[in-house]
């Protein structure tokens, strides 16, 4: 059949965003971070993909899992949020965006294999982070996801402190991504950081050699 394993990998292997993604809330906003590697089997098909996808001006989501599923969910929710925000006449709430993502993830949970972390800022509740794994929706102070997250659960649990300010959060995100990317084969490339607060949405790229280094034999 055309999808057997004897052909080139990208024909039979689904394109996955190997990934490490993280989102963290601070007083006044959120910081999201992701790596940039997209793999199909053992082949890296895109080494600079920005997995932090905008759902609205002040709401972003981080993509992981199957690239096609994640991109499609993000684009659908982007469209639905545009319509919703026009209907209510103001900027949508982060909880609304997370609910839209959850609705798709839950209804098609058997067919889809993507996990999106939704994070943003709204006027009502400030900075918020929502995890939507497998169709649940839960607000958390921070969330990690993707194959690289397994390697950094210990680090984030030990290093997270309540009441961090914006710069501390950004440094925390960069450190986490750097550690995960050095240990997880499916994560790598550059690090994308997005900081959302009341006044602005700032996107930043940190290239490979500018990432912090830790103990490395």
């Amino acid at each position: 059949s055309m999808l057997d394993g004897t052909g080139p990998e990208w024909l039979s292997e689904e394109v996955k965003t190997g990934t490490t993604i993280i989102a963290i809330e601070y007083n006044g906003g959120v910081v999201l971070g992701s790596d940039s590697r997209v793999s199909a089997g053992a082949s890296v098909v895109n080494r600079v993909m920005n997995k932090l996808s905008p759902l609205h001006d002040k709401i972003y989501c981080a993509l992981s899992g199957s690239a096609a599923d994640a991109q499609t969910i993000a684009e659908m929710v982007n469209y639905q949020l545009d319509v919703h925000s026009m209907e209510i006449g103001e900027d949508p709430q982060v909880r609304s965006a997370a609910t839209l993502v959850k609705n798709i993830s839950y209804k098609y949970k058997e067919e889809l294999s993507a996990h999106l972390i939704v994070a943003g800022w709204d006027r009502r509740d400030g900075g918020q982070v929502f995890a939507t794994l497998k169709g649940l929706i839960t607000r958390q102070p921070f969330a990690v996801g993707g194959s690289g997250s397994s390697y950094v659960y210990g680090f984030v649990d030990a290093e997270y402190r309540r009441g961090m300010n914006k710069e501390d959060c950004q440094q925390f995100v960069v450190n986490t991504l750097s550690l995960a990317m050095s240990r997880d084969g499916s994560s790598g490339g550059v690090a994308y950081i997005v900081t959302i607060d009341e006044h602005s949405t700032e996107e930043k790229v940190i290239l490979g050699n500018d990432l912090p280094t830790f103990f490395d034999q």
Partner: protein
Amino acid sequence: MATLTVNRAALGGFSFENCKRNALLEGEANKVGCSLPSARKTGTTICGVVFKDGVILGADTRATEGMVVADKNCSKIHYISPNIYCCGAGTAADTEMTTQIISSNLELHSLSTGRLPRVATANRMLKQMLFRYQGYIGAALVLGGVDCNGPHLYSIYPHGSTDKLPYVTMGSGSLAAMAVFEDRYKPDMEEEAAKQLVRDAIAAGIFNDLGSGSNIDLCVITKGKVDYLRPHDEANKKGVRTGDYKYKRGTTGYSLLITHRRHDVFISSMEMMSEVTCVL
């Protein structure tokens, strides 16, 4: 309001109608001892690059059916709209039909908007169709064009994910071509340098990948102009025989008379062979 797309949107989920038909046909064929033809794949190296004034798409020209070359000079760069072209790798029929369907829908859309179509529109239409078929349409595409927002290049995978990048490669020869790009790509190249780069990338695929071969086709798309160079480079010209077994006109033929003589063998003397020992 009348709908403007020829393609009727599927009512959710994958339609298995053709699978039932195929199973039936296969049964019928096996009964008479034949087998259904296997899907012809374009082994392929395809690539695209964004340069200063536009995009350049490149492709090889070999189509394979298993281990046999089915077509030595097939065209893998498909027309989507006057300013957008698309290279296709994977199952030949899938790339051909998918690009034709989207080309048709895009033309209707363009007539409706009254504007030149945008590359992002073609990208959305292609990815939404491929996602709907969950990867069963084996079409991996490199989509490139120039529109009102400048030059754009996308790679589209069979499951429906897309990447927007300055240079992309697809197909079984993609790793060889990507190696050339990663070494020599620079942003804002001139047209001649970019054409040479794409030519070299496809050549790397042709000579290092068994599924790719024959000639190199290029398509240079700039604002207001498209150069469809087929072939741009005949990298594998069929060799010319240097000799010929045919006799020239006017040659006189003759034959040699051979007589056989019988020789009688006489034994005149017998010599005793002394013992010889061999020493290594």
